[in-house]
């Protein structure tokens, strides 16, 4: 068999294993290992297994992933996501479908301090879903807003996906980050447009919430200060060349802890929750 045929068979087996709910990492390792055994020999594959596991786990570039996730967790446990949602809610909650749009808005803002889509979606689900349930939103619209809004976490920098892509293809992670901002904002506004249009066609989907006075709105803006500061510290430092994208994860996590502690939003118990 030619290596090409073996590769194609390997791909087919990989897809089969993935669909059988074999964890993605396990499936890829198993198929890769088996393919290497077939192409070279068992001894080489075994020794490669140990070396590959160690070199991947100790890869400096990949250490940024747990750190950015840690930063998102700290921000969530410090209540940043809730405050972002409250601000967006104060501004657009009274419109038809406003709570869903507020969810998208808060996801966009939270994406600026959280690098992963599932984390953004999970965070916003705990904050926004109960609220939308309270105002009798259609669950289709509510969960749709959370799930699609969560995907903005990946587009808006920092983004774990961009980092992995940048490392694999040797592209500038800083440029990738920069490139994610406009499409992210564009998609967020398109989401809001879609929500408005669906709610206009069927008002029962997202009944308007209570209106907030301008005074309340201005006051709610205070809640976005910490996000803005964190974003400027991390992205600003990155673009100013003070630290590398890989170091940005550690700096971001550290700054998020400092900001949360100064704001009185982070106890030791909450910090522990963010770690586990």
């Amino acid at each position, binding site marked *: 068999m030619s290596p090409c045929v073996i590769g194609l068979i390997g791909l087919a087996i990989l897809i089969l294993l993935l669909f059988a*709910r074999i964890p993605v990492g396990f499936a890829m390792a198993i198929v890769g290992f088996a393919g290497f055994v077939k192409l070279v020999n068992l001894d080489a594959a075994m020794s490669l297994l140990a070396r590959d596991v160690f070199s991947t786990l100790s890869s400096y570039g*990949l250490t940024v992933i747990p750190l950015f996730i840690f930063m998102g967790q700290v921000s969530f446990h410090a209540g940043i996501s809730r405050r972002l949602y409250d601000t967006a809610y104060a501004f657009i909650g009274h419109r038809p479908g406003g709570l869903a749009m507020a969810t998208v808005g808060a996801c966009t803002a939270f994406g600026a301090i959280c690098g992963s889509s599932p984390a953004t979606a999970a965070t916003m689900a705990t904050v926004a879903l109960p609220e939308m349930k309270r105002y009798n939103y259609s669950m289709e619209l509510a969960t749709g807003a959370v799930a699609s809004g969560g995907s903005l976490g990946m587009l808006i920098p920092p983004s774990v996906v961009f980092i992995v892509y940048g490392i694999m293809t040797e592209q500038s992670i800083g440029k990738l980050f920069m490139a994610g901002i406009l499409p992210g904002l564009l998609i967020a506004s398109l989401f809001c447009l879609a929500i408005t249009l669906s709610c206009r066609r069927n008002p029962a989907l997202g009944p308007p919430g209570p209106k907030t006075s301008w005074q309340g709105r201005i006051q709610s803006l205070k809640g976005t200060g910490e996000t803005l500061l964190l974003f400027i510290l991390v992205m600003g430092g990155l673009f100013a060349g003070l630290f590398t994208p890989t170091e940005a994860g550690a700096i971001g996590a*550290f700054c998020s802890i400092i900001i949360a502690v100064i704001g009185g939003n982070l106890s030791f118990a909450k910090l522990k929750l963010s770690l586990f």
Partner: protein
Amino acid sequence: MIKITRLLIEIMNYLAAASVVAMMLLTSADVLLRFFKHPILGTYELVGLFGALTIAFALPATTLSKGHVAVDFMVEKLPTAAQKLCGVIANLLGLALFSLIAWQTFVYANILRSSGEVTLSLEMPFYPVVYAISVASLLVCIVLFLELVTVPKVSSI
């Protein structure tokens, strides 16, 4: 057996968390001190090694809580018996993979120790970290094995 496993997983989980904190503090200190022209020597390699410890020590707990990323939507459409079968296959494959990893990283660590291979700037030996990966993989195997033989009990620990 289950109690000891749970305790070990807990300990490893704490070590993983400590490694994350260590990476964060070390890198932040390095960046800060760089302003004053005193970067910390060997941050690059230390953070890499802490990263390896983070992932390795978090593996058993992730396995126990079924936190590995997997594709759900096809299996969900199958009948319960077929779903269980898929679970058992996943478990067996994982068991095979991690026993190989545990064994081979142990062999690799022995090689690294006898050849005395060290990191570039701090000249720290690599082998303790590789042993740690081996032990963590072994614990993953134990979790997978216990899950295979005592399905309801382990998922409740």
